[in-house]
């Protein structure tokens, strides 16, 4: 990467961070909403964990990572938004006509989304420990960070592929909302997978939520610092993320006609 290229990426990155800082509604959806939901789901999931055999669990070991993976999915919509916003504000052609290359545009737009997704997960775990009785130890942090990174890479890759395939934000909204609910339900974010119907249990491994939650539970639940499960799950997420990025990058067409709204 040349110095000129670094300067261009830094300039667009600065713009993206400014726009992100001024769009406060994002933080309400990504952080405040799941914490509100945690208040109501906590007691129920404590019982669910007890039924699974974790009698001493506070419930936060399920509700916090569950809501983390469920609401992290909304990053997909944010990834799409930072691209479609350019069509809405009619600035996309202007960026394309500038010395920025397509790769530079994509990098400058995705880095803030990586930061946003990781920041969201960190904030939810911190709030879980501070207010919901999540038993968190410093030794667990590197493992949680590894899981968060792999989940984030998957979600940002999924978001980029959504940008490639969608032609307007309404389509993205459908993918984002249905995807978040479906993956949360099947992946065990709302109810532990062990308590799901048989058909749902067989579909669960097809969702990213399942693998992320499996890894989070392996770290957080008592007596289960299962490194093998963490490695397998993060590996699966990273592999899926790689496939998504490869498809998205090879199919990215900067000249395709798109609109923000229809």
């Amino acid at each position, binding site marked *: 990467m040349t110095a000129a290229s670094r*300067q261009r990426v830094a300039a667009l990155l600065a713009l993206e961070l400014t726009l992100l800082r001024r769009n406060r509604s994002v933080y309400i959806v990504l952080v405040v909403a799941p914490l509100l939901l945690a208040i109501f789901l906590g007691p129920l999931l404590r019982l669910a964990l007890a039924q699974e055999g974790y009698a001493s669990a506070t419930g936060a070991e399920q509700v916090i990572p569950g809501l983390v993976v469920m609401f992290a999915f909304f990053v997909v919509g944010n990834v799409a938004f930072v691209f479609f916003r350019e069509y809405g*504000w009619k600035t996309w*052609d202007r960026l394309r006509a*500038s*010395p920025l*290359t397509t790769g530079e545009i994509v990098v400058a737009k995705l880095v803030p989304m990586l930061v946003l997704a990781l920041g969201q997960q960190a904030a939810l775990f911190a709030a879980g420990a501070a207010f919901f009785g999540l038993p968190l130890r410093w030794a667990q942090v590197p493992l949680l960070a590894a899981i968060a990174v792999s989940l984030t890479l998957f979600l940002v890759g999924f978001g980029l592929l959504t940008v490639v395939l969608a032609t307007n934000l309404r389509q993205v909204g459908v993918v984002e909302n249905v995807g978040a609910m479906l993956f949360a339900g099947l992946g065990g974010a709302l109810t532990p997978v062990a308590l799901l119907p048989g058909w749902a249990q067989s579909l669960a491994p097809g969702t990213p939520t399942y693998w992320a939650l499996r890894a989070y539970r392996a770290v957080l639940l008592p007596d289960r610092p299962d490194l093998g499960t963490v490695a397998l799950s993060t590996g699966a997420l990273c592999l899926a993320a790689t496939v998504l990025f490869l498809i998205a990058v090879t199919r990215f067409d900067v000249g395709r006609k798109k609109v923000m709204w229809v």
Partner: protein
Amino acid sequence: MDQPTACLDIRAVSKDYGSVIALRDVTLTVSRGEIVGLLGANGAGKSTLIGIVAGLLRPDRGEALVEGFAPSAHSSRAHHVGLVPQDVGVYETVTVGEHLRLFGRLYGAKGERLTGAMRWAAGTMGLTGLLDRRAAQLSGGQRRRLHVACALVGRPRVLLLDEPTANCDVESRAAILSAVGALAELGICVIYTTHVLSELDELAPRLVVLRSGRIVADQSLAQWRDMLGSAVVLTFTGAPPEAALAMGTPVDGHSVRIPCQDPGADLVRLLDQLGHRRHALRSVQVSRPTVEHAYRALSTTPAGTP
């Protein structure tokens, strides 16, 4: 390496959209400091040509070189092109100063050079007092000027203006037209499209007319003015006298249009020739060819006529 002789060199460019011909064998060379008024009806190919020069579209055949750079050298080439698209494109929650900083940095400026370029672009477009204001808080005319300023801050060699004054107030239109003239004097090559042809009278550009994707005329406005000629229109209280009709052609029941090269000097001679009948004159109107006259003449020129 030899310096390119032309700032913009479009060579036999063709572009189709499916079965629709957008451009066909368009060749155009534009020098530094030259203003080209790119005219044509909707769908004539103006925006496609601008898109190709800006690097947004790939031609099916031919190439458009900017300062000698081909489209494949995207970043180097783009450094020399400032694009002002037809629709105003600004970041609503970002200030004027932040816009100028962004585009200045994208075009490689930093430090003192960046500050100078921002100050120059803001000053040129009358935005100096608005640097801390967000785009959403600007008036329509101010947004349009910011839209243009974003293209200037990179100090382009080729400025592509696609209907830059659309929906502008009088002040903003005047600021943009004044800036275009000043930029050409700095050696910037300007491609200007508009449907408000009176704007081009002020800029006195070279007129290039596109019709169905082909260049059907390419002459300077001065050349067209010479060809079309000026005229004096004499209007009488009653029917025009025989002496007046002998000098020109009747326009209606009261007026006669008399062609002349120098209306100011020729008018005295015409009045002399009318003798005592000049007392029947109700009004005298000098008619000079405008861009609109030229465009009408040019656009009726058969395709292929130089």
